[in-house]
């Protein structure tokens, strides 16, 4: 993974020192609440329901074991012993004291971590495919470009006070595991007719209260133009994005109001004026790429005795089937650690689990851990011969729930329990749905189902792109839930359609169960949930959930 040199290290040190000064000025009353707000947000610090919340960047989801140990230390020392992994490949701490945050940032800086631009109206943490570099369907590893963009966007002097937050995702594989169509800018590595690799540039996607799927404004961008093209898009957005209404300030609204053609024309005109002065050196791409070389894999073959082991223990077999995926190198396998243990808040990890996972990463996966946008962890490079032993260890940690990609692997925001924006709880709903499945066979029979829950229309739980989306709403002080069906954040991205009137907190899990039953009744052989919804439409589900009237 990328290693800081003196420049990178100096910058995070200086940033931590700057924030210490800002916090002191705020506490002394020299900075008003309103003035401190964007400054603290650009350092990941919210003021939440119970305490400040600190969001720490995990650039493109990559963590070294020593970094995870530092997060454990922070959870232990400054928080209540756990952290929450989010859909943004970040970790959030819910209970730090404001006056401790400068110390937290200083400690993070010692392991090349920071909270820079994890919130605020600036370019946010760049996200990517959690299987980058190991998947079999990859055209090129996207992470060098993520790192190049991380550096370009960090403290960008022109784009630190944008109309609204700005999110970029990059995907290098055939399958889209980075939801590129749902970002302000999505970059997909593609090949042109001359067999050169470059980027398809999508703009204007996003979730939140006006979910929109991004549009391609340039089918092929040469690598050397990556930064100039981003700069052109950002400049057009910074100058012409709406600032009169925060709900209309995202670039998706600008693209929609101008129309794709006009917007593209403006970007291309801006780009034409700067592209020759802002070339990205191909040597720099090569330099950064060296940090993402494959680890020293052993020469192995795929492990036949593994099949025997899975045959011997049905629990191991279930875990192997659901929580591991093929690796591009023979003899290795990618392992998911499930942070979706029924009854626990999705995405949470305790400090002792963090320490243990760091140890496991050292022993089994070259000291690296990845964070997925579905709020799970990945050990990407595990020898197949080690899988049984690893499984036993993560079982003891409670991270082996064999449910990746199933109906209990729920994406869920912190909701009303922690977030001051939320209208409704979301964690208890996730737990309620998980409890439908005391029988794992029933869970597996339903196959791949993505359930996403948000406690408010800001959509941190990505409800609009869940196969089943659940949105908490407030009705006269009571928690109600709207259901959408048919969303997807993959290559076939789509927004879910509303099923009908919202249902009460008492009814929501029953409604979800009715949706499962409808699917079981209606599906054709081997048909996945999403396919069934797309084929039969809302009606059969409505009848089951709401009755005939």
């Amino acid at each position: 993974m990328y290693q800081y040199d003196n420049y990178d290290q100096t910058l995070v040190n200086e940033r931590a020192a700057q924030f210490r000064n800002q916090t002191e000025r705020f506490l002394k009353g020299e900075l008003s609440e309103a003035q401190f707000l964007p400054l603290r947000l650009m350092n990941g610090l919210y003021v939440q329901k119970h305490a400040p919340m600190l969001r720490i960047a995990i650039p493109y989801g990559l963590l070294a074991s020593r970094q995870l140990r530092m997060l454990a230390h922070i959870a232990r020392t400054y928080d209540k012993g756990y952290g929450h992994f989010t859909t943004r490949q970040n970790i959030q701490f819910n209970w730090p004291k404001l006056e401790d945050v400068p110390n937290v940032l200083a400690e993070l800086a010692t392991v090349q971590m920071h909270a820079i631009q994890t919130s605020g109206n600036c370019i946010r943490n760049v996200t990517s495919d959690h299987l980058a570099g190991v998947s079999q369907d990859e055209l090129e590893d996207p992470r060098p470009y993520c790192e190049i963009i991380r550096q370009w966007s960090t403290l960008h002097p022109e784009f630190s006070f944008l109309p609204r937050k700005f999110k970029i995702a990059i995907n290098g594989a055939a399958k889209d595991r980075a939801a590129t169509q749902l970002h302000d800018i999505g970059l997909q590595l593609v090949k042109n007719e001359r067999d050169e690799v470059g980027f398809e540039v999508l703009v204007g996607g996003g979730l939140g209260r006006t979910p929109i799927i991004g549009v391609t404004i340039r089918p092929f961008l040469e690598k050397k133009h990556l930064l100039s093209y981003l700069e052109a898009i950002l400049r057009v957005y910074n100058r012409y994005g709406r600032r009169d209404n925060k709900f209309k300030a995202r670039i998706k609204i600008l693209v929609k109001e101008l129309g794709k053609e006009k917007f593209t024309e403006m970007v291309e005109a801006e780009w034409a004026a700067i592209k020759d002065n802002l070339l990205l050196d191909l040597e720099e791409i090569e330099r950064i790429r060296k940090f993402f070389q494959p680890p020293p894999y052993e020469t192995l073959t795929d492990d036949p005795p593994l099949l025997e082991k899975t045959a011997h223990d049905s629990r191991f077999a279930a875990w192997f089937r659901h929580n591991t995926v093929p690796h591009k190198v023979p003899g290795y396998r990618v392992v998911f650690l499930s942070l979706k243990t029924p009854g626990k808040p999705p995405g949470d990890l305790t400090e002792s689990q963090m320490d243990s996972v760091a140890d496991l990463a050292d022993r089994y996966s070259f000291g690296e851990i990845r964070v997925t946008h579905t709020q799970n962890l990945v050990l990407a490079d595990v020898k197949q011969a080690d899988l049984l032993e690893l499984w036993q260890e993560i079982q003891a940690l409670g991270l082996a729930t064999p449910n990746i990609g199933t109906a209990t692997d729920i994406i869920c925001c912190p909701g009303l329990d922690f977030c001051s924006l939320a209208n409704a709880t979301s964690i208890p709903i996730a737990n309620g749905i998980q409890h439908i499945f005391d029988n794992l066979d029933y869970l597996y029979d339903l196959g791949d189902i993505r359930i996403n829950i948000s406690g408010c229309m800001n959509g941190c739980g990505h409800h609009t792109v869940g196969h089943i989306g659940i949105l908490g709403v407030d009705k006269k002080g009571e928690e109600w839930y709207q259901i959408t069906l048919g969303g997807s954040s993959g290559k076939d991205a789509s927004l879910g359609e509303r099923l009908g009137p919202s249902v009460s907190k008492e009814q929501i899990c029953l409604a979800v169960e009715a949706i499962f039953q409808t699917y079981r009744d209606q599906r054709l052989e081997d048909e996945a949930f999403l396919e069934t919804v797309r084929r039969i439409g809302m009606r059969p589900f409505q009848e089951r959930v709401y009755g005939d009237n």
Partner: protein
Amino acid sequence: MEIIKDGHVVTNDWRHLSDDEVLPEQAITVSVQRWKSEKDRLLTGGVPLGLRLNSDDSLEELAADLGFFSIIVLEFRKFTDGRSFSLARLLRERYGFDRELRARGDFLRDQIFFLSRVGINAFEPNGSANLQEMLPALQEFSVKYQAAVDVKEPLYRRRK
């Protein structure tokens, strides 16, 4: 009144004329509106001229006039409005404006590092800001990843 210019606290020698004030015998800045309606009269007034630009004024429309001004003042009505950061950079890089470029109004000490990077060399903050205490903020970071007005090469070309 004092301002920060080129890293020092100095006396302000410009008067920001409102649209209905009579022309005085001293260096003045005027709004875009006044410039458009009184261009000829202002040019024959015999005093140094400056232009005050709001963040939503169209730079493109004024491009041909920029040579008339000894100073351009970017008005910050709200410190969270980042449009003038782009205007500054365009003025320097695209339109070649090489005289005083001043930020005036509602901006924070914590923004002047960014503002100086996009080409602003003078600062006239609202109210009673302590200018001496603001000066160190111009050097808050020694590392600059991106090319901008102050450094023409991205850091990767300068790394040793």
